């Protein structure tokens, strides 16, 4: 946990923060910092900024600090925080919005998590489905963790839980079109 200069916040990011909060459907001023979100967060033990602190950063106008937190990458979107918040703040939706924004700004705080999801979507774009074997092989190669989960490979193949050839849908063109239409305005700024 780093020391954060609060006076660095101020008003310059307020418009941007309000826009992100509105996308997430969150009223930031509702949060009274009780910390229930963070107490129940399963990933909280590994986070640099707890969900409560992420909200506080935004309340204080410290947008870049929030966007550069590894927490927004570690969030598993389990929705425990949003479910338990006594003020109805959808923290999980906020984490998701911040992560999408960080990606747009090419602020990648966790390269492996980013790589995994990029590869996942690349496969879906190619095949229309997620081929687990190809995804694992590509991830291991590109992350440098060559032997990750190889202890399970023999049983997976022997039992028919894994197959080398990817399943491919017939209308892959429809999927490529969906990707194109959704992502065409998504180039990093």
């Amino acid at each position, binding site marked *: 946990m780093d020391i954060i200069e609060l006076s660095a916040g101020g008003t310059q990011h307020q418009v941007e923060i309000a826009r992100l909060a509105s996308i997430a459907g969150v009223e930031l001023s509702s949060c009274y910092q009780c910390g229930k979100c963070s107490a129940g967060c399963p990933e909280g033990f590994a986070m640099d900024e707890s969900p409560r602190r992420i909200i506080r950063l935004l309340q204080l106008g410290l947008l870049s600090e929030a966007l550069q937190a590894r927490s927004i990458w570690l969030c598993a979107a*389990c*929705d425990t925080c949003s*479910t338990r918040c006594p003020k109805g703040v959808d923290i999980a939706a906020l984490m998701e919005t911040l992560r999408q924004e960080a990606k747009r700004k090419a602020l990648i705080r966790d390269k492996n998590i980013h790589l995994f*999801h990029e590869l996942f979507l690349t496969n879906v774009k190619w095949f229309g489905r997620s*081929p687990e074997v190809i995804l694992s092989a590509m991830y291991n190669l590109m992350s440098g963790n060559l032997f990750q989960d190889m202890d399970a490979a023999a049983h*997976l193949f022997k039992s028919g839980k*894994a197959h080398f050839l990817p399943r491919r849908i017939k209308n892959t063109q429809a999927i490529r079109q969906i990707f194109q239409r*959704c992502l065409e305005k998504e180039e990093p700024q």
Partner: protein
Amino acid sequence: MKYAYYPGCSLDATGIEYDIANKLVARTLGIELVEIPDWNCCGATSAHTTNHLLALALPARNLAIAEAHGFEQVAVPCAACFARCKKTAAAVQASPDLQVQISEVIGMTYAAKSEILSYLDVIGKKTGLDHIKKHVVQPLTGLKIAAYYGCLLVRPVDITQSDDPENPMVMDRLLQVIGAEPIAWDYKTECCGASQVVPVPQLGKKLIHDILKNAASYGADAIATACPLCMLNLDMRQKQINAMFGTQFHIPVFHFTELMALSFGYSAQDFGLAKHFESAESLLERMIGGKGA
């Protein structure tokens, strides 16, 4: 009862035995499952952490195909697919503009009219426990089971319509009907980390370890799941967890429909018990005199 069935990618691969058991249970209970033709991946976490529209459009194509074939109800066995489908339907129902936008993106009309149900709810809420009970020929008497729901079947509750986001009981009641003994435990709805264990293994394995430890501490003979990814994490990774934490877990993990199939008199060869990593043989031997093994 007739449902459009959206198996999702895992049920074609690492979760293949879930698919087999689902179909056995459906056959016994007189439920007709019709696979959505040419279905695609729902995008899972990867899509919704990347792009809002993409996360809605990928499930919308499948749901639109189901609608075009006249289905009023869609059954989704995977918790992650279920959550994505439900979120898509809710978002489209809430906004006519979004309905137009999504329909344009997928090149098909999606009206969000069909009801989306997890397979757990199809069996546990729509089918009727009395009807299920009639088919139990081999009750799983004395089997202590920790019913594990994880996140996405229960949260967010306005989307999932779970009976209780902190202490859901729908699977527990099913287990009771088939003669097993569902136990009260603390980690029913804790997160297993889903795919996080791949890019951040140290973190993901701690979550899985904590779930196994809690189930064991309450004396669970086995864990039941209703999600292929929860299953994979709890079953396939027990060996890795034991190596990392110095533990000795050997807890059989089942898809809830596998336990139902057993109670309906199917043998383990009928479904995919041999595909599990943690062997359930000695447990079944003790429980039903090996008839299931």
